[in-house]
Structures are given as C-alpha cells and as structure tokens.
C-alpha cells in the first residue's frame, strides 16, 4: 500500500535521502531506525507529500503523492515530527475540526471521535487548551488526529517520544491492534520498540538503507545496541 521508489532529496549540495526504495504491505508495521539526521523525518515528509522529492516517487494506495495528492492524502493518517497541533484549541475542538476536514459527519463523526479519545485516553483533558497539556498528552492528541478517519496508511514520526513507560506500552499495544488492516510506517530511536511492535525494520544512515529485514534477523546478530552501532558506524568510517 506504500510504494517508495528511488526516493531522493537534496538540500542544496547535501544529499539527505539517497535513492531509498521499499514497499509496505497491508498488515506490515515498518520500523524506521537511524541516528539523528539520518533522513528519517525527511523520508516521512516525502511519503506524506509535504516535501517534494528531488527525484523518485512515493505512492499511497496506488496514488502518486505528488500528482494525485488529494486522493493520497485521503488515505493517509500522519503524525508529523513533534506532533504539531493548534494549541489554542482544546483536544475536543481540534478533533472536531479534523473530522470536519476529513469529511466525517453526523453519527460517524461522533462515534469516531469517541472511539479515538478512548483509544488514546484523552477523556480527562478533552476540554483543556492543548497548550496547557503535558508532552505525553500532546503526542496522544497528534496520534488521535492521525487515526481519526481510520486510514489505510499510517505514518507516525516518533509516536512514543515523550511518553512515560506506561503510555509507551499502551501506544505500542494500540499500534499492534491496528496493524492487521493497515500499512504502518513509524520512526523511532528506541530499539526495543522495533522488537515490540514492528514486523520489519529498516536502518538508515546518511540517507541510505543499510539494513532491511525482520526484527528477529536483526536481533540474531547480537545485542540490538551493538548491532545498530556496528551498522551505522561502519557507514561513518567508510564515508569519511
């Protein structure tokens, strides 16, 4: 459902993403790993159509995100980096606005909002301005917004960043429960998270794919921390 082909992005002379190719099928949860500045967020911005690639294509459910952006955006739920939201609004008003934009109305709108509020546990802060909420709640508002229209494709940039261990556990459970009828891409810094929720892992550094396989095959190489360091630092040595 997500098809990425030779996706490349240059910022001036700097190549941030270098010819990345992969596909994600329904039922798959792809974990995007890599050091800071590896090009994870840039890749996600291109998959969601926010950033135009220098070359290559991204397709969502068969729709090219550049050429048929409206059709692609309808199929997509996206949690951008830092979970931005209109902070003067309350989560209730914000989700209502997103539902309107997504074309949900009447009973569907009411039940969908109630369902996601329950899924990410926003009940107690529903009527407080988002700017007064803790980082964990803000992240969950962003997550609620992304899954509101029950999209076929979900792109989550660091969905568990800023959450406490209990919340992380719940969000991972939520992602797993949604996985069977969606294609999900998520980025993370936390290696255990990949084992906990992902069916597949991709490690990128300096914009290039260095590993693409199951979390099990990654773990079979040794302790995750060390494997990650070996893979990403070998690249650093060979590049310099």
């Amino acid at each position, binding site marked *: 459902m997500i098809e990425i082909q030779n996706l490349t992005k240059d910022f001036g002379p700097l190549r941030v993403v270098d010819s990345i190719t992969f596909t994600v099928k329904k039922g798959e949860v792809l974990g995007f790993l890599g050091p800071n500045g590896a090009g994870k967020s840039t890749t996600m*911005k291109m998959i*969601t*159509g*926010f*950033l135009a690639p220098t070359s290559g294509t991204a397709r969502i459910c068969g729709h090219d995100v550049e050429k048929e952006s*409206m059709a692609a*955006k*309808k199929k*997509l739920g*996206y949690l*951008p*980096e*830092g979970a*931005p*939201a*209109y*902070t*003067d*609004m309350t989560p209730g*008003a914000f989700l209502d*606005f*997103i539902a*309107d*934009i*997504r*074309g949900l109305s009447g009973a569907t709108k009411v039940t969908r909002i109630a369902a996601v509020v329950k899924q990410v546990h926003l009940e107690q802060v529903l009527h407080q*301005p988002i700017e007064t909420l803790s980082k964990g709640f803000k992240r969950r508002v962003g997550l609620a*917004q992304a899954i509101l229209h029950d999209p076929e494709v979900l792109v989550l940039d660091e969905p568990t960043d800023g959450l406490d261990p209990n919340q992380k556990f719940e969000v991972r459970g939520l992602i797993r429960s949604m996985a069977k009828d969606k294609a999900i891409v998520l980025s993370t810094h936390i290696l255990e998270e990949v084992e906990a929720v992902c069916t597949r892992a991709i490690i990128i550094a300096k914009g290039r794919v260095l590993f693409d396989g199951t979390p099990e095959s990654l773990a079979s190489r040794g302790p995750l921390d060390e494997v990650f360091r070996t893979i990403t630092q070998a690249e650093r040595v060979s590049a310099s």
Partner: protein
Amino acid sequence: MRTTWILAKRELSGYFSTPVAYVFLFFYLALMGFLTFYVTGYYERGVADLQPFFALHPWLYLFLIPAISMRLWAEERKSGTIELLMTLPVSLGEAVMGKFLAAWLFSGIALVLTFPMWMTVNFLGNPDNGVIIASYIGSFLLAGGYLALGSFLSAITKNQVIAFVLTFVVGLLLVLSGTPLVLEFARQFAPDVIVDSLRSFSFLTHMTSIGSGVIEVRSLAFFGSLIAACLLACVVTLDLKKAS
C-alpha cells in the same frame, strides 16, 4: 468551498479563543474614536458627515492590518502546524482562501463595531447615509487589499515581526504613491503616464473617490485584482517553500 469555510471558521474562532482579538478590537476602536474626535477637528468642521473618520482608515490600517495578517502563515510555519495542514486533504488554494476570509471577516467585525460613529453623526445632523455606506464598503475593500498583501508577505517568513514590518513598508508605499508630495515630485521628471499609474496604484486615490460616495468600477477592479494577485502569490510562495 466547504473546506474553505471549515478552515475560515477555525481560524476565526482561534482569534477569539485568545485575548488577541479583544486587545486588537479595543485598540482599534479607541484609536478610531480618539483620532476622529480629537485630532481631525471633527466638531470644529460643523459638517454632519464621516469624511474625517474614513480619511483616517488608509493610515490606521497601515499598522492595524499587519497586526492581524502577520500571524496568518508565519505562525503556522513556526509552530509546525503547516505540516499538519498540508497533509490533510486540503488544497493550497482552499487553505489560503480560508485563512484570508477569516482575517477579512474579523476586520469586518472591527469595522461594524464603529457603528456608534454613524449613530453620533445621525444624532447631530442629517448626513448622507448613502455616502457613509459607500465609504464603509470602500474601507472594507481597502482592508481586504491590505490583508491579502499581508497574507502573502506572512507566507514568506516564519518570523511574525518581519511579516509585520514588510507589510507595513509595502502598504506605506501603496498609500504614499497617491500623496501630492510623491506625485508632484514624480511629475518633475516622469511622463504623465507614469504619474497617473502611480496615482492609480495608491490606496489613497481609491479611498478618496469612494469617500465621495461613488464606488467606481475602477476601484472595485483595483481592489479585486490586488486581492487576487496577492493570494495567488501566497499560494505560489507556499507551494515553493512550505517545508523550509
């Protein structure tokens, strides 16, 4: 159209959910009232009309309108919500239009709240209410022109102060280009065509003609095309550099 309205509604309710709207309205009305009654010699003229009040508008809008328009896109960029907005099923045109309409409606609300002026002048004498209505429409168009300009200039930066200053400076040029000072200066060396087109680009020229109670097609076309051109420039700017 539906999407545009949803976005405009959100934007407008955003104004009123913070003190910004109330502070703005307070200063707007206080300034309009004070300047009209104490500075323009409103009573001393002994004429029952609102001409001195409307003559202030091109000048007051110079810094009041950028205060509304500066945040339109600069804030969206700064807070990162532009990434959210641009990945929702919303076209750039709808987004630009929605935000512009919200700001324009808000300036309309501010303008409507000056109705005590109109009541005062009707209480004191028998003004030509047709001229007053025409002037209100003219002032609203003028606000739209300024706002479209401000919306475009807000899209090129993530810094609201820069957006404010840019809009102020460009607005000032558009007002000043119709003053005798500039026109006489230009007449010394430029051909009449240049002087006339300079005059026709000025907010002041169009406000003066509307202030006399006539809404000319020329003025409508001027503000209409100014708004259209600025909003189009805004769409193009966002498309080119929405992520930067």
